[in-house]
């Protein structure tokens, strides 16, 4: 997948070696029979080592597509049509499939939403964990088995010998997700991508799994990209958050900034539309009007414009550029430019 379509080698911007993951202006489309679906439309984000980045968005926002593109797992008929991706100082755009395979499972791992469909039902748990170990290391089968037992204990599964011989359908949802995590961590990757890891789980099991992930992060010092639509989950686990809408990162910054000083209307709208369990009296929810955008025909300007209550004329015609509110917190919204513009106007006068 990763042959560079454009002449990015000449125009690629410098990579900041401090960042484990760096994505700059990524554009990715799916060329379907119905037309070009512009799944990613200028996405930029970064993750430092040992940091937890939460990517928040709804269906169609492009959050999973972004994560998959880092691993080179973009499904046909998707194609990278612009931007630069770096992971662990590899330039993903130009890596061959063979090179990517060395990295997957090894330096970067992924766990998916539905553990039942991502675990192979005809192989035992032991087989599937050992597969990853044997693929990327020089261990013998016996050593791999020992390591598999170690991993199961690490993720909190009792009776590891018994479990290694079981098949996925014999385990509960929470256990299967733990097995997924064990497989993902087998080679101690530097980055773990978790794509809606707890959405299909009950709340009490979700709490267990999230606690486990944070524990493991501390123990192994890995970075995590946590993809979810649940703002509560990111509030408790993430250091930084990127909010995506219709294939763009509309706001990004440290967790406290996003929750307490949201800058983008979409972020604000999301925060206001969630009922708060702790509120003392009944306050009517303030929803975001309208429906999610049609990715075959995204609007010319800001993708959120049709649903934005502060939509201005310029929002309909031109996509906004990023404005920095602090060093780490930025957002793409014309309202921020408007403030600056007016300030400029006053200065001149």
């Amino acid at each position: 997948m990763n042959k560079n379509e454009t002449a990015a080698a000449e125009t690629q911007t410098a990579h900041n070696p401090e960042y484990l993951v760096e994505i700059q202006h990524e554009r990715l489309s799916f060329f379907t029979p119905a037309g070009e679906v512009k799944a990613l439309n200028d996405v930029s984000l970064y993750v430092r080592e040992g940091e937890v980045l939460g990517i928040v968005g709804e269906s169609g926002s492009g959050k999973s597509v972004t994560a998959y593109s880092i691993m080179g797992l973009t499904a046909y008929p998707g194609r990278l049509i612009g931007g630069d991706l770096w992971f662990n100082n590899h330039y993903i755009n130009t890596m061959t499939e063979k090179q990517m395979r060395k990295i997957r499972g090894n330096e970067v791992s992924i766990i998916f939403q539905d553990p039942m469909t991502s675990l192979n039902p005809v192989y035992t748990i032991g087989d599937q964990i050992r597969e990853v170990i044997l693929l990327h290391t020089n261990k013998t089968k016996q050593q791999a088995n020992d390591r598999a037992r170690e991993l199961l204990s690490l993720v909190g599964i009792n009776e590891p010998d018994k479990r290694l011989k079981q098949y996925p359908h014999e385990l509960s949802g929470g256990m299967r997700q733990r097995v997924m995590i064990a497989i993902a961590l087998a080679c101690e990757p530097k980055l773990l991508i978790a794509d809606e890891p707890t959405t299909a789980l009950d709340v009490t099991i979700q709490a267990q799994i999230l606690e486990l992930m944070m524990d493991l992060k501390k123990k192994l010092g890995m970075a995590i990209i946590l993809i979810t639509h649940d703002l509560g989950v990111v509030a408790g686990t993430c250091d930084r958050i990127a909010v995506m809408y219709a294939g763009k990162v509309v706001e990004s910054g440290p967790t406290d900034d996003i929750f307490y000083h949201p800058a983008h209307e979409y972020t604000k709208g999301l925060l206001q539309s969630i009922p708060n369990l702790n509120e003392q009296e009944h306050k009517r929810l303030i929803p975001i009007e309208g429906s999610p955008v049609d990715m075959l025909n995204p609007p010319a300007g800001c993708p959120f414009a049709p649903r934005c209550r502060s939509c201005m004329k310029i929002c309909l015609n031109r996509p906004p550029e990023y404005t920095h509110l602090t060093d780490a917190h930025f957002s793409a919204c014309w309202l921020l430019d408007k403030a600056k513009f007016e300030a400029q106007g006053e200065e001149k006068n």
Partner: protein
Amino acid sequence: MTKKNPLSLQLNVDDFLPATEDERQSLVQLRPSVSFWKDAMRRLRKNKVAMVSLVIILVVMIFAFVIPSFYPYQYEQQIKGAVYLSPMTYSVDEQAKIDAGEHVFPHILGTDNLGRDYAIRVMMGSRISLLVGIIASAIILVIGSIYGSVAGYFGGLTDLIMMRIVDIIYTVPDILLIVLLSFALRAPMDALSAKPGFQWIQTVGVNLISIFIVFALLYWVGMARIVRSQVLTLKQSEYVTAARALGANSSRIIKHHLLTNCIGTLIVTTTLQIPSSIFTESFLSFLGMGVAIPMPSLGSLASDGLNGINSYPYLLLAPALLISLIILSFNLFGDGLRDAFDPKMKS
């Protein structure tokens, strides 16, 4: 993550005015409505094989139903002295007429052993075969779908009993039953045909009536099984539960929700049943169990043609080719329909 140039000259104050509701809504376009049928037809049109088959079917239909009205010869008309003519030749008498200046329509496929124009006989044969195929398939569709949907919907003991009856019916030898029925019905049918309004029985023939009766008794079981399995799956759908919650009774649910969602399967199965019925009828006619003479059917024409296969091969070739063509084109079209009616709609 570049900072925007605050001194950009491309902005002006008006840009920052709030957008009106209309301007916002203009960005929200509703895609043109596409119903299940349009989508299926679109897919069908793209399928070249299915389209060619459809054209062939239409041509055969015209051949069988339209052209005979304009054809100068009748299927039972025996022309003296014009026996066993090869295609596109004239008898001595006809040649004489042409020399005298009269216009005699050529025998495109020659004539048979009784001097009847073969082309019109093949056309009528096709008409009979097609009619039998279509009517038989219609009977199968109605009986099979009702039986299958009732068994599938009610389940439990009803389903059990109904399906065991189906199993028993499967074991009955159909050809044997047809033969027995024809013998059994001959006398009563003859008596009935004497009564006013029932003359058509003589034209159609007891055999053919027996065939239809047997189709109605035996051949619907395949359709019933298919419909039952579809209904078993569909009745778990949440929209069926929703209909029950609204107070819909069983017949409404079966009619409006279950059968309508099977329509693709029903159409395809029926379309594929037609060549099967035609083949059965041809086979029976070939054995002499089909339409009453002088009414031709492709099978009986082929059977008669078999006798003179060495000297007059066209007598066998024409009906045999036509049977093959009809069956093949219906099969291919049915396959194309099946592909077009893929139940998963794109979202």
